[in-house]
Every structure is written in structure tokens, then in C-alpha cells.
């Protein structure tokens, strides 16, 4: 059990560290919002989900994509802008998708996927499918109007959806206390009529609680809300750190780093087992980056493909005068 979880967590951590390492070479030309320090939220909640379940996330979505089993090669290729990327270089780091793994989208506009997730949940319920939705978003997103509107709709229709607020206490450089009149995010969720609870970043506790809550949602209990406390180690966007900016200090991060689930799980493993996992992960990451490096950029014709289903219309408009209407 812990070996498997360790591989999941460690793999995400190492992938993002490698992204950060490569980033200054400018071969990755996509803004990256790293989840380093927050991996346990995605891993913990996804542990409680089934393959048929569906998730929506945010621009900080590498961890969610990987926790759901999204293809690593295609993710790295996407960051490199290559034709082999999970969206052929059209979406980039902030719009990862893996429909075969139930990863149905991520948005660069804060809060937007919360409503998309609820609509998807409506469709699942409408079709009497046993699947549920998990909608991931940050503490900042709870300040958007769409958050309140969606929670109301989800309760009204008793949608099979789990809202997961990844509370890292910051929206870019601004602490929650400077943005919210009261930090009581769960109380706000409860006011709409759904159960809500705050859990700390401990992976085992999170998995257990997520399983229980997911079971209730799946049983038709309607929406539920989890606020998972966590901490972002790196800068908001980019490969580096931001402590020098002065809005937070390393002292604030220290307890989170001490409690790091990656290190904790590592300590539980036999050294040989740990070494095996780590070398396999290293190999896989090296392979994914090599794949991305070696992949071609998309052909120029891709520029106007996928605007509409009828590609030739788009191409015709683009060619302008003389084009036939379809």
C-alpha cells in the first residue's frame, strides 16, 4: 500500500522538479504552476475515486493529471509544445486533458471549471450513471461568484459531486486573511446545504475521509465539500521560489516541509524498495523528457484545425476571399 502511494507521490514530485530544472533552458514554453508540496491532495482524493469517475481541475493541474493516470510522455510533450502532447501543443500546461482517464479539463480562468464539473455531474445523474465528479479548485476560487452559484445549483439538483478546495492559503502572493472576511470556507459551503469539512494535509487521513465522503456522494447523498489544507512550496507560476518577495517567509513553510507526505512515506519503506521505486521513476521521467525532446512540433495546418468540428470551414475562412462556403 504505502509503496504504491509513495510511487504516486514521489513520481509527481520528481516530474515537477525535473520541469523546474529544465525550465530555464526555455524548451518548455508554457507557464507552469507547480504543485510541489500539494501533491497529496490530488493523490489522496483520487485514491478514493474509481476509474469511471471524472475530475476537473485548474491551471495547477500536473498533479491531478498524473494522479488520475494521465500519460506522462504526453504531458511533458505538451509542455514542450509538441504534436505528441496531450492536446497537440494547443492547450499547454494549464489545459491538460485525459478523457480516457476521466480528466475532463482544466482552466486558466480561476473558478470556471467548478461550474463545468457541476454540469458534467448533472449529465451523469441524468443518465443514471454510477460515476461521480470531483471538482478541484483553490482557496482563491471560492471568492468567485461562480463558486457560490455552482454550490447552490449542486445542492438544488443533489448532484453527485465532490468539491475539493485545495487551500494553500495564497492566491498568487495574497494571503487568505487579506482576501476573505472570514476564513470559514467550509461554513460557507454548509450554508448552501451540503456537508463540508476541513482536513489537514496528512495523506492517510485524507484518503480515509475521502473514501467515506465519496461513498456518500456515490450513494446519492448529493454534493459534499472537502477543504484540504496544504502549502505551495514554490512560486505561484514558474520553477523558482518566492520567499525573497517578502510576502511570506520560510518559517511559515517550515512545518509543512517537516510534515511532507513524500518524505514521510519514504521513511516507511525498506531502503531497497524505496531505491527501486526511485530509480524506476527516474527512468520513466528521463524517457518522457526524451520523448518530448524528440517529438516534432505540430504542422502549420494545425493552427486553424479544431476551431470547429468542420475543419474545412475554418480553413476556408482563414484563406478568406474566394473560399467556398460549406
Amino acid at each position: 500500500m504505502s509503496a504504491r502511494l509513495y510511487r504516486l507521490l514521489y513520481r509527481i514530485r520528481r516530474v515537477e522538479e525535473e520541469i523546474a530544472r529544465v525550465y530555464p533552458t526555455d524548451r518548455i514554453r508554457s507557464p507552469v504552476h507547480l504543485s510541489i508540496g500539494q501533491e497529496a491532495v490530488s493523490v489522496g482524493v483520487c485514491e478514493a475515486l474509481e476509474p469511471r469517475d471524472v475530475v476537473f481541475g485548474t491551471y495547477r493541474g500536473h498533479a491531478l493529471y498524473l494522479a488520475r493516470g494521465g500519460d506522462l510522455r504526453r504531458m511533458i510533450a505538451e509542455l514542450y509544445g509538441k504534436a505528441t502532447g496531450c492536446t497537440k501543443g494547443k492547450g499547454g500546461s494549464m489545459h491538460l486533458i485525459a478523457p480516457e482517464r476521466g480528466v475532463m479539463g482544466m482552466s486558466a480562468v480561476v473558478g470556471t471549471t467548478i461550474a463545468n464539473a457541476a454540469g458534467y455531474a448533472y449529465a451523469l445523474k441524468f443518465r443514471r450513471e454510477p460515476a461521480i465528479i470531483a471538482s478541484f479548485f483553490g482557496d482563491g476560487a471560492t471568492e468567485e461568484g461562480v463558486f457560490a452559484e455552482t454550490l447552490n445549483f449542486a445542492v438544488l439538483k443533489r448532484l453527485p459531486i465532490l468539491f475539493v478546495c485545495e487551500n494553500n492559503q495564497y492566491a498568487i502572493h495574497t494571503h487568505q486573511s487579506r482576501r476573505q472576511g472570514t476564513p470559514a470556507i467550509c461554513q460557507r459551503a454548509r450554508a448552501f446545504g451540503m456537508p463540508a469539512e476541513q482536513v489537514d494535509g496528512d495523506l492517510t487521513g485524507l484518503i480515509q475521509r475521502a473514501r467515506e465522503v465519496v461513498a456518500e456522494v456515490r450513494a446519492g447523498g448529493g454534493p459534499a465539500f472537502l477543504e484540504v489544507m496544504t502549502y505551495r512550496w514554490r512560486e505561484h507560476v514558474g520553477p523558482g521560489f518566492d520567499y525573497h518577495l517578502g510576502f511570506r517567509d520560510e518559517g511559515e513553510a517550515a512545518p509543512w516541509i517537516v510534515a511532507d507526505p513524500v518524505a514521510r512515506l519514504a521513511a516507511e519503506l525498506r531502503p531497497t524498495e524505496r531505491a527501486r521505486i526511485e530509480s524506476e521513476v527516474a527512468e520513466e521521467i528521463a524517457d518522457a523528457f526524451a520523448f518530448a525532446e524528440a517529438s516534432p512540433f505540430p504542422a502549420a495546418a494545425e493552427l486553424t484545425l479544431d476551431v470547429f468540428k468542420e475543419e474545412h470551414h475554418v480553413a476556408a475562412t482563414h484563406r478568406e476571399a474566394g473560399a467556398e462556403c460549406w
Partner: protein
Amino acid sequence: MLQPLTVRPARSAGESRIERTLSYADAIREAADQEMARDPSVIVFGLDVDDPKAIQGTTRGLLDTYGPERVFGTPLSEDAMTGAAVGMALAGLRPIHVHIRMDFLLLAMNQLVNVAAKTRYMYSGQVHLPLVIRAMIGKSWGQGAQHSQGLHSFFMHVPGLKVVAPATPFDAKGCLAAAVRDDDPVLYVEHRLLHFQQGPVPEAPYAVRPGKARVTAAGEDITVVGISWMQVECLRARHYLAEIGIRAEVIDPVWLSPLDLNTIAESVEKTGRLLVVDTAWTCCGASAEIVAAVGERLQGIRDLKLKRLGFAPTTCPTTPSLEELFYPNARTIAAAARNLVEDADTGWMPEERPELQEVAFRGPF
């Protein structure tokens, strides 16, 4: 009484005469009904779609036939409900989201522009987004600043959205069916005054193919393009122009995106004159786009006279004395057309003919 604008299903096979007459509002209702009967993934929602007034009758009976899971009124949450519509469409449903005023779409712009329009592209074609947004443009009886706007050009501007503005009951039905069957998001623009128009509508289901304009009246002297309700005003203007010997060719673009530039440009190549009349402002509007596109296409090929008409460049007032001045109408359209044809400010304004003015709408709403 003015002859209703008759459209024959020229591009659908079979019958050439349609016996049945239906109002535009009933044509919308019938299209929704038939599409819902045909495809169980079609659902209709929006503020008050299930209330006793049933959106001027356009959703009447749907709740009884298809039940509250497929037809439901929503909370007053345009943003989230549009986002939910996107999620439903991603999951394979075909939502029709209804807004009684286009002005309210401004609360849904993020989901429409940032999400719906972008989804297919940013996910490289791996998902479909079969979403229909019905939005009404209000006019008359003091609708005023926030209940009267024609904002369709906002959506024409953005790749990934289709925009249709049917002007006849025939197209109201066929375009709604086409929008529902389309795998991309379609903004369906209906003018409140058009709801009262009567016209021939086949009973059997049919779809009007996206991206094709209609020449609604043939002429040699000037091409007049009328968008949505302005199509009706342009056909009226044609009667005024006929009195003074000017033969106007009138075109209904029907689809604003994809726009059938070929049909319009072909006509202008013949007439050398283009007047585009929109039920919206002209600045950066659909009329600006059409005039610019025709100009680009025909410059150097043909001498051209170009003009746009639309809302006065001000906020829509409520008092009838000013509201009357805010909108183009058949007479001001005719006057502008004559000036273009004679290449002079003739000062002419036709004597009002009551049968070319009648409007069925009275308030309060």
C-alpha cells in the same frame, strides 16, 4: 397588410409549397419539441422556461412532454448555469440554454468566450461542445438601456462560436434544429418582435444548413443586407424604394458566423452598392464586418458604394419620441439606400405607409 417574408425550403428536398402558417415563436417551440423527441440528450433550461408564460410560448408544453429533468427553470445564476451547460455538453448532452434578454449574456461571457468557444481547440478536438444559447433582443415599449442590446458581434468576434439570427418562422425552426444538431456552441439570436411574425413552416423536422445566406428579394440597383429584425424593415424599405424606381436586392445572412460572404459579395458585384442594416450598433458590429469583408473582396474589381445602418451611437432611451430615433426603420433605410444609389444627399424621406409600419408587439414586456 404586408406580405409575410416567405422562405421556401429551397435546400431541403421535396415540397415546394408549404401550406401551414406558424408564428416565429411557435416555430421555435416546434423545433425544440421535435429535436427533443428525436434525441433524448437534448435538454432545455434557463430562467423561467418552465413557468406559465413559457418564454413567450417558445417552451410551452415541453415540461409536460419531457419532464423536469429535461426541462427546468434555473437559479438566477447565468455564469454558473452557462458553465454547467458546458459541462453537460462535454458529457454528451445537448443543452439549449435560454435567456429572455441578450443583455444577460454579459453575465455569462466568461463561460461563453473563455470556455465554450475555446474548448474544442484547446483540447485539440478530443471533445465536442454541442451547446445552444438562445438569446432575445428586446425592442419597443420602453425596453430601455439594458433590455434592448444586440450584442451578437461580440460573439462573431470569437473563433469557436457560431452565431445565427433567423428572421423568418421557417428559419427559426430550421436554424434551431441545426444549432441543436451542431457539435459546436451556437448562439441563436432571436429578436423579440420577430416572435410575432407569421410564415410558412413545414411540419416535418428539417435543419437549415449553417453558413448559407438567402437572397430574399432580387434587384439590380443596390444590395441591402438586413440582420434579424432589420430583415423585415429592409423588405419594407424595398417597397418604398420601388415607388421611386429603385430595385433593391435584399439579403438575409441568416448565419452571422460562419458568414456567407460569397452570396453577399456576388450580389454587390452586380449592384455596386451595399447597405447593411443591423439591429445593433455599427461600430465594430456585424455591419462593419460585412462591409469590410465585401470591400476587401471586391476592391479593384468593382467600384463600390458602402454604408452601414444600426442603432444610433447612444444608449437606448425609453421614451417613444427618442426610441423612434434610435432605430433604423423602413423609411430611414429607404432614404439611405436612395442616397447611396444616387450618390447624393437627396434629403428624401418616403411618406409613411401604415401597412409598412405595423408591429404586433405591445407591452408591458
